[in-house]
């Protein structure tokens, strides 16, 4: 009798186990190689929030540190060993981590690359179009200064794949405006303090220039102009909360914000869950095209006013959600808590 009872209990236990397994308790691994940058932090928070909001993820296993492609290979292999069901990765560069991605997909692990593409064909890619990002902003800037003059070109990190893509877009726009010259080209390293120092140094030289294009280190550039009390020139930046706020409020500032949503991380989690559930998207690669919001026309002003969000960290992009891809609320992403936290 006792044995029968324990048998029944065991059976019930096993049945209980299998029913929870049916409720899709996925474990998702995340690999990211830049730590302490507002954009990347938002991306990670979007991943956490989306994993929690989906209700299908048991836990997130996040490998998030400053490292190179070789370090990311290590992280991805560790995630494979940890037995995750899917890996969402922001690749250090498009080719360097292909071997580990192949090892993962060979083991049946779903791999989604977000923000930047990878060339490994077995991975799914959900990426922001970096070349278009730069082209859109640069074209607007050159148009704004009347198609001639000189601009300060404030790039991202030297040698980074995303910076290289943006450079292609910038150069494409530059080729269309032969009378526009690059007065000064610097690498901000996507660091606020460094970018501010560089523009202050250049302002101090007294050499006149007509506009500034930035690779997303934007609000500190406006600060530098305001603090050194020199006339503002048109400035192009990203949709960071601080810069969007300035476009709405700083007197005499003409500029444009180009969207580059960090919430693409959350979208990557959604895509990974869809793939685990068996829904394959039509294309292996989905490019998120950027938008440009400027504060010259009424229409642009309205977009900027709608987008502004002073409650966000100034370094966070305001596009904290991507319709159709993310289901969390603003509170969720700001709380930055994943499943089980």
């Amino acid at each position: 009798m006792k044995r029968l009872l324990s048998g029944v209990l065991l059976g019930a236990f096993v049945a209980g186990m299998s029913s929870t397994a049916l409720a899709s308790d996925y474990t998702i691994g995340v690999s990211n190689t830049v730590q302490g940058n507002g954009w990347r932090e938002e991306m990670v928070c979007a991943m956490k929030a989306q994993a929690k909001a989906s209700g299908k993820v048991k836990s997130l296993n996040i490998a998030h540190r400053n490292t190179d492609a070789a370090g990311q290979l290590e992280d991805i292999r560790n995630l494979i060993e940890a037995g995750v069901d899917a890996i969402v990765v922001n690749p250090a560069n498009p080719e360097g981590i292909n071997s580990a991605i192949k090892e993962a997909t060979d083991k049946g692990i779903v791999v989604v690359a977000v923000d930047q593409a990878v060339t490994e064909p077995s991975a799914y890619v959900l990426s922001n179009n970096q070349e278009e990002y730069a082209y859109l902003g640069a074209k607007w800037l050159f148009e704004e200064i009347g198609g001639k003059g000189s601009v300060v070109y404030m790039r991202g990190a030297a040698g980074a794949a995303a910076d290289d893509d943006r450079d292609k877009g910038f150069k494409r726009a530059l080729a269309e405006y032969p009378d526009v010259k690059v007065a000064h080209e610097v690498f901000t390293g996507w660091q606020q303090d460094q970018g501010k120092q560089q523009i202050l140094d250049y302002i101090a030289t007294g050499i006149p220039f007509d506009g500034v294009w930035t690779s997303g280190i934007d609000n500190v550039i406006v600060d530098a102009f305001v603090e050194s009390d020199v006339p503002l020139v048109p400035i192009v930046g990203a949709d960071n909360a601080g810069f969007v706020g300035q476009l709405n409020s700083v007197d005499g500032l003409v500029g444009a914000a180009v969207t580059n949503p960090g919430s693409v991380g959350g979208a990557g989690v959604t895509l990974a869950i869809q793939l685990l559930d068996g829904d394959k998207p039509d294309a292996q690669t989905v490019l998120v095209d950027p938008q440009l919001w400027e504060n010259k026309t009424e229409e642009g002003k309205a977009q900027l006013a709608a987008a502004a969000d002073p409650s966000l960290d100034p370094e966070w992009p305001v596009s904290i959600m991507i319709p159709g891809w993310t289901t969390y609320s603003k509170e969720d992403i700001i709380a930055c808590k994943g499943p089980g936290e």
Partner: protein
Amino acid sequence: MIRFLRSHYWITGLFAILALLLVITKIIQPEYGASGIDSLARAALPFAFAAAAQTVVVIAGGIDLSIASMMAVTSVTAAVMMDGASEEYAIFVVIFVLCLGALMGTINGLLIVLTRVPDIVVTLAMLFVWEGVALMILKAPGGAAAEWLKGLLVGSLSIPGIPDAVTVWFPKSLILLAVCLMAVWIPFRRSRFGLSVYAIGSNSLAAFRTGVSVNRVKVGAYAMAGLFAAMGGLVLTMSTGIGAPIPGPYLLASVAAVVLGGVVLGGGRGGLLGPIVAVFILRLVRTDLTFLAVDPNITTIVEGTIMVVVVMIGGLLAVRGRRS
């Protein structure tokens, strides 16, 4: 045996920590096995060569802050040269890049010896110089690596007569590391030059008085560090299949491994085995933290704390050993 353990207590301790960590890893992740060891060895490779480079210089009483940048230069050089080239040409590339590494190390050493500016200042400056050189060679990640070179790191050797169940535990990457390090280190330790490196690190004036050409030996030590850095750069290209001009986190990791590996930062004492085991310990800690899904912002604190604690315990043991 006991005498060996006592004289090599640091190495013994490191192996004990490594074994303990492997046991812990197995408990956290019961499926951890041969493929885990393979991943570990591949992850450790660039760090191990960086640590080897730093070890030589530190034993000689110096420090080289440009190691990661030299790795970047050699990595991009190899990737650019192998891009579109034949598989056979890669043999030449490997030799060329190793020579390039030694040349960069020699330049570092000569600058230190000729200008008499402290090692830390010269190599700090060279960190930026070599980083710039790497960016000039390749402005964004790119290039390629020969298939046979990439294959050197994948899987395990099958040796006739030994069952695969055994060889699978000794991945190719581990064997490659051991062969490369021993090919340089064993002749080095047995040579007059090797002895001189320890001598100038221990007391350069005394070494000078016994007839050691301090400057020449110092340049030699830096050249050897450059050679190891070139090996590190090559394995970066081999594992990623491309070259990346931005240096990875190998500089601080190399210093950490050297300290944890029992090499005295003042120079003159220590070996190569300690830092290499330390590299494996540090990589395995990272693996365990990933398995445990520890908050990423806490992992770096944990890594740092482990290092400080181990080095402190080691220091206490050393003091006790001297008293008894």
